[in-house]
């Protein structure tokens, strides 16, 4: 059993679940205590000792099924299906199998192992034969056979056509044997069904084996690929998965915030703490205690360009802003194209997808006009400038393509003077800044940080700049 468990741990590792040696040993000790008689206990014991991340529980369960139950579950399902189709009770089904066994003995000529196991419903034997074949297939696939799919290669390896012809032969014999027997009718239908079942099992077992080998692309890989993909290439599918990435990003921010709270080097003199700390020196204040620095949550104002040219990026950014709202004392969100509109209330009241979609749909501002950063900035200055304080971080997301309108970069100068930080994230490559109607060279000098932000991994880096 130990070697089986070790092997299983290796399968888990290949599928991206971290299992350490000490965890393996825990699993052994747990099994010593519980025994391996009860499947549910066995599973719980392995899960508690080997899997430590909530996200790994589901893959664990799947792999456990593949590894320890094998195609047993699939076989169960197929048996049930046959019984349903033929309208047999389990006892009748058993009787029929015995009948088949007798008939097979009478049949002339050699039968292959596989046919015998299949027709007699000998599960252990069937699984062993299939498993052996598939393992050979996976470990030593010859290059020339790459032309075929694993499935066709397996068919050749197991010599399925032989099984087929053997079953036909058996069928022929049955037909000769009994012209009228109702029971034999069932047997014949059973034969047809079994042949199809074999195909199903074959597919199932190949899938399982691939999964064990970690051949199937895992979510992790997909996620990391997503991290480096530019927003503008996102597909529908990516956007859905993006939610997940955004959530993790927000989580990371939270973690960073929660960890930092160190004693300040400077601060107000704390009489009480100092007296207590210096009791050991007879009340002579050797060690001065200062107040902890207050954890200040930053205030954030986000201005997000939602014109067509940066749609995907702004969708992502809006989701991000939405997810991190509770990290900040105050977040005010604005969207703009040619005019600027506030969406803070919208974000507070709705769930993430409705909020983002409503913001992008044009209910707040006209989204079909041409970008006019200058006008939007002037409007922002007129209406919202007083709301900026020395604690505010102003975050602008946009490509800076102004359609040759007035740039109004003086607004940024003013903002910078008043705000704590002014950050510009541009979903366009830095190479193209300043080309055509891009006003980035004019805007960028006013910002504390002006970065290109085309993918999640770039955003990760920038997030660190925004944290207080």
């Amino acid at each position: 059993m130990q070697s089986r468990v070790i092997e299983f741990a290796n399968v888990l590792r290949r599928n991206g679940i971290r299992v350490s040696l000490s965890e393996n040993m825990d699993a052994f000790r747990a099994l010593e205590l519980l025994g391996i008689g009860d499947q549910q206990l066995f599973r719980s014991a392995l899960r508690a000792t080997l899997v430590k991340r909530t996200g790994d529980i589901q893959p664990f369960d799947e792999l456990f099924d593949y590894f320890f139950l094998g195609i047993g579950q699939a076989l169960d399902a197929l048996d049930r299906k046959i019984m349903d189709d033929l309208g047999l009770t389990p006892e009748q089904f058993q009787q029929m199998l015995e009948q088949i066994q007798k008939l097979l003995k009478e049949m002339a000529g050699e039968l292959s192992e596989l046919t015998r196991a299949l027709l007699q419903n000998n599960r252990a034997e069937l699984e062993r034969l299939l498993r052996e074949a598939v393992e050979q297939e996976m470990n030593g696939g010859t290059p020339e056979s790459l032309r075929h799919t694993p499935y066709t290669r397996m068919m050749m390896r197991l010599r399925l056509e032989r099984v087929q012809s053997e079953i036909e032969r058996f069928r022929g014999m049955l037909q000769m044997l009994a012209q009228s027997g109702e029971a034999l009718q069932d047997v014949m239908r059973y034969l047809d069904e079994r042949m199809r079942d074999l195909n199903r099992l074959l597919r199932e077992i190949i899938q399982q084996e691939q999964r064990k080998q970690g051949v199937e692309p895992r979510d992790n890989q997909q996620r990391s690929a997503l991290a480096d993909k530019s927003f503008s290439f996102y597909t529908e599918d990516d956007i859905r998965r993006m939610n997940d990435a955004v959530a993790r990003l927000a989580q990371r921010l939270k973690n960073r915030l929660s960890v930092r709270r160190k004693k300040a080097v400077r601060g107000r003199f704390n009489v009480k703490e100092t007296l207590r700390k210096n009791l050991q020196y007879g009340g002579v204040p050797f060690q001065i205690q200062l107040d902890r620095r207050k954890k200040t949550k930053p205030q954030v104002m986000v201005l997000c360009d939602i014109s067509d040219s940066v749609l995907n990026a702004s969708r992502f950014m809006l989701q991000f802003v939405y997810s991190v709202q509770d990290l900040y004392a105050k977040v005010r969100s604005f969207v703009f194209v040619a005019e600027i509109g506030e969406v803070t209330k919208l974000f507070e009241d709705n769930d993430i997808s409705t909020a983002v979609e409503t913001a992008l749909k044009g209910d707040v501002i006209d989204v079909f006009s041409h970008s006019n950063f200058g006008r939007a900035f002037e409007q922002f200055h007129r209406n919202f400038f007083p709301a900026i304080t020395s604690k505010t971080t102003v975050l602008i997301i946009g490509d800076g393509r102004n359609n040759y309108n007035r740039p109004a970069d003086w607004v940024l100068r003013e903002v910078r003077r008043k705000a704590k930080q002014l950050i510009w994230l541009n979903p366009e490559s830095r190479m193209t800044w300043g080309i055509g109607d891009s006003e980035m060279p004019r805007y960028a000098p006013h910002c504390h940080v002006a970065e290109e932000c085309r993918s999640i991994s770039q955003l990760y880096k920038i997030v660190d700049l925004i944290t207080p």
Partner: protein
Amino acid sequence: MFQSVDEVISGLGKQNYLCNKSVATVVYLGTRLQKPILVEGPAGVGKTELGKVLAESLGMELIRLQCYEGLDEAKALYEWEYAKQLLYTQILKDKIGEVLQGAKTLKEAVDYVAKQDGVFFSDRFLLPRPLLRALLSDQQVVLLIDEIDKSDAEFEAFLLEVLSDFQITVPEIGTLKAKHVPLVVLTSNNSREMSDALKRRCLHLYLDFPEAEREKEIITLKVPGVGSKLADEVVRLLHRLRKLDLKKTPSISESLDWVRALTLLNIKELDHELVDQTMSALMKYEADIRKAHQELKSFLAEKQAQRPAAGGGEKDHLH
């Protein structure tokens, strides 16, 4: 101590805590292998409760350490009682003078004092905080380290020694080993991923919202006056509500509060007005309540649709 998994189920059951077999297995392994259990899961599924009932069912003392940002060794482990040390020196001034009488030189006097300094740095002046208390206790205890994810990474690292070797190093005294290895339950809301080192030392248990059947059992167990019909409806509604995208999904503890409120009002089945009025016990955000409203309407509409059959039955009964 538990002898089998079934014993865990019945033991916890006696304390009105229902758990399924896989939860019980982990608890059993934790007690037998003397490994800490790290319990994760959404808020309000009974993570903390598990630690409490474990202590009660085993008849052990529960020592609880609530974690928070900035929790440090002085508050979790031990602290020297400076005031007491000082007081003792003051009181014993004469005695100290006596001891030092024989000393001719300053060096000799210092040596005398040095010989005695064990007196001042001994257990007597050590103020044990929860962790040390759990280790030094004369009987085995249950140590509940609550919301470990709220603590700093430094504290987590420091816990490693305690959790794997069950010992603590105090520089002035040396290493203190546990007299009895405590049963440790750590809970986490997963607001921060715990380090692999910590996880490796623990058994992992994921508690999720229970299946409808079990939740009904829990409700009937915890709120004795509740009618079977009400419990059934509440559970069905809850399971639908949990599928919504809410800011805060209604937890078991909240649903218990709600059912308690309903039973106090002597209510036998859900209707619209009533649920509206008491919803605030279940939902904590205005936006959530609004969202739940829609779900509630359709739930009640379905109930209405099923009603004629049930109503007919009752009438027959009256005749």
